[in-house]
């Protein structure tokens, strides 16, 4: 962000370029006086499960690394390591993303939801997964839960086909697939406002 580029010096507040350091300094004093200090290089702010985190990240870190290794939210799992399995899925600004394929540095200002947040909020998916034994070794399970939550957020009454489509990127070696359809359908029925849930 700061430093001498090919065109001279770049303002850390607005990105404007100057030939000399003096010009940059003058501009900062006139245009940005009173502004809070610019974020240091590599610093991001993001909301994870409703809480703000300010983290200094290295350019090579993935969002998975940040969440799992740095923030200690170990519910996100790494099955494949290259965008093939869905076990590291988190919800970013409402959409499911593979956290092993997203660079942490790109997540400045993002809102993230992980399986821990979904469980803490008592989302009906959790109970329905437990009742229907939609897991065996459980390693892939959080990824399925998060992907299903993202599905129910945008489609609270999905058909079997829609559930299959949504979960088609999640691998399970234990072969628990049939139970996910049942569990997600049932969780949908328990969402507040669903015709079967008894709620409004």
């Amino acid at each position, binding site marked *: 962000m700061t430093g001498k580029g090919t065109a001279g010096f770049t303002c850390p507040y607005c990105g404007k370029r100057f030939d000399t350091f003096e010009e940059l300094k003058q501009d900062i004093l006139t245009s940005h006086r009173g502004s809070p200090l610019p974020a240091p290089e590599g610093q991001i702010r993001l909301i994870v499960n409703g809480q703000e985190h300010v983290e200094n990240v290295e350019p090579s870190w993935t969002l998975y690394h940040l969440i799992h290794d740095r923030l200690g939210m170990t519910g996100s*799992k790494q099955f494949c390591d290259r965008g093939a*399995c869905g076990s590291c899925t988190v919800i970013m600004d409402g959409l499911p993303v593979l956290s092993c394929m997203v660079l942490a540095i790109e997540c400045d200002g993002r809102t993230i939801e992980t399986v821990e947040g979904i*469980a803490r909020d008592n989302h009906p998916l959790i109970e329905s997964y437990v009742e229907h034994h939609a897991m065996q070794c*459980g390693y892939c*399970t959080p990824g399925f839960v998060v992907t299903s939550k993202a599905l129910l957020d945008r489609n609270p009454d999905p058909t079997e086909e829609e559930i299959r489509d949504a979960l088609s990127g999640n691998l399970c070696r*234990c072969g*628990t*697939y049939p139970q*996910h359809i049942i569990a997600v359908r049932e969780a949908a029925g328990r969402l507040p406002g669903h015709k079967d849930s008894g709620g409004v």
Partner: protein
Amino acid sequence: MGIHSDDQKAKMKEMQDNLQADTHPLKRYRHIGERGGRRLDGYKKAGGDADYTMDVQLPGMLFMRFLDAPYPHAKIVRMDTRRAEQLPGVRFILRYDNPELPEKASMGKLPGLYGDQPPLPGIAHFEGEPVGAAVAADTESIAEEALSLIEVEWEQRPFNLDVIRAREEDAPLSYPEMYPAGNYWNNGLFNELVQGDVKKGFAASDRVIEFEFFRRGHTWIGPERPCGVFRWNGDCPELWVKQQRPHLVKKNLSTWYGGVPMNKIQLHCLYQGASFGGWVQVSWNMGPLYCAGFVARKTGRPVKYVFTRREDFYGESMDNGRYRYKVGFKKDGTILAVEGVSTIVNQQWPMFNVMNHFRENTKIPHLYGRSESVWVNKGPAVPTRCEQLPTTLSMTMVFSRVAAECGLDPVEVALKNDGYEGHDMVRLEEEKRQRGFPATDSLKECVDRGRAAFGWDDRWHPPGTRRLSNGRMHGVAFTWTNEWDDSLGTGEIAIRIERNDGTASILAMGCDNGVDAENTYCRIAADELGMRLQDVHYNPQTDPGFFRMSPDSSTNASVNGWAVRHAARILKQQILQAAVSPTAQTQRGEYRPAFEDCTPEDLDIEESVIFRKSDPSVRKSLADFVMEAGQSGPISSTENAGFRWAFTEPFFAFGYHVQLGSYNPENPRPHLTRQAHFLEVEVDSETGEIFITKAVNVNDVGKAMNPMSCEGQQYGGTIMGLSRGKFEEMIYDSVTGVMLNGNLLDYKIATIKDVEAPIGTILVESGMGYGPYGSVGIGEDIGTVMTGILGPAVHNAIGVWIDDHPITPDKVLKALGKA
């Protein structure tokens, strides 16, 4: 302990290596066999709270990565690690030639197969093998970068990839250090099975056919990759391992680093992201753990290693190779003789003979089986959801061939040949009676129920004769075998009643692989102790012993289930004995019994309450009976207050079980229960694509202690088996020996879109298992048996045999003459 718990101990000893029906089943089941109920580990797993070894992070932990061989067979001649050592953040580089590394260390227990091996070899025997150097650094990416800075001069050696080429006289040696005389294990013969005289059988047959097929190598893909964390607390090692058999890790480790007493080793086995078999016991996986411990000691910091997904891809199933058969039979489908020869790569495990299941399940009088193991430059082959893949694959292929040749329904051919060790069903029924089992015809019952559920009679047809209105060819297949009743192993389990609330803790070495074993243990303990299910909890022990051959996976029901039951029965007798005895006896005097003027036989426990059978109103909850945990003890404190309140003895009991099962040349216990599987497919004859449209599994599990868990193994095993039959194969470049698809994008496994068809799960409960309450295990067998069923289903659809598994669209087109 009174006479009654001693009685139970004596009964426990009587049941060791059980060869007969359960002589003391429960009169009434409450939780055992109960359908439904929440999964006990469900909340943790679904909510992301279940911790796996991959999740472990310790303060100051270093990350270790390994150099992977770029060639399939090569020796390191020179290695320069200086540039890597200078990279900031690199803390230690362990080289294969470090003088402190032993030449060999204990990595298993069967010498020659996977016994002592170098912990960090300097010679690679397959491309991708971790060899030469292990880098420990502050972060994984620094370790990875350091690896790229290591300069290695390799001496490339000739190599073999092909199982048939490797067995030829002039083939280069694949593994000269272990097998200098040739690429065979034991001159080619791994094991041999002879029953009767096949020549006689062929001579008496109406028809004799010969055929061969290939099964290509596939891998397990445990979702959690192989990993471990090692820390030294002074001279005591503490480690976290992803290992299916943690006791072997402890045993091996006790011989490493100059020797470590077993009681100083603290080993944690957290939830396991599934492993499906025995890969954990080979040097390929044990070696890295050795290196982690070595470097942890040198650096004084905890060290974690995690295999990359690609590194994990090199492990093979135990069925990769060629199978040849000669089969003699009558026109009515009665098989008289089968000769089978399997030539399979890199067996690192005692392999079942290719004819084993024919001997165990059929009345075929004449059998000859020869299993050969050949070394090629690929990864080690170990049980991958079961070492019985080759023999069940053989059952499927031989029976389907015979049925097709005779124009008979394969179900009828199976029923016609059912039996054991060359004897017919009359003799098998006699065996059942003598051993105290009901004389149920297990295969008949499985077949009847499966046939009805599948609609077999309407769907089966002669090969290649049914085209559907959507233009696709329709096919069905059937296969069968015994349930795995050959459990081998030992199990040690203890149960303790907690103070204050009287709940029960089951203590055993834990290693959860996902088969819901804890639920089964809790059900057994609850019913045996007369407790509510919610009052029983499984507390897996990380270290103190309670060894089990296969904790929470293979042999759960049949070995560990017995151990839980023995412990619960001993404990219950302890409790009832104590209930009628003085509550405590001290130097101050004797304290009145909780239940006066009665014997243990007058009492029982239900719903966690002890009561007098003749007058249930005389009752005391277990919590009230065991009382509180005292400081100086409730005795003294309550005495000061003017009344006596005694302190019961602690309640703790252990049980154990030992079992050889049918792993014995004399096979003292015939297999009594059967499984039957039905599959329907549609084949697009233009594209070669195969669509699975229906599957039905019927398993005679004897007694389903935990039905939802059994069903999980049925549909889960079906999906894994069909995935292997339809997609799975590791592909190597024949020129370079490099694996081409060592990742989950290029190596396909079934997704949720591949299993749109309904998978029927039917449990038969004949009570004919040697496990507790007549149970039999179910976890390994369906995934194993279903691996081969696609071949006959596609044959039934297109009328042409494809003798090369997996059955992929290109092979279908080739079989149809379209490619």
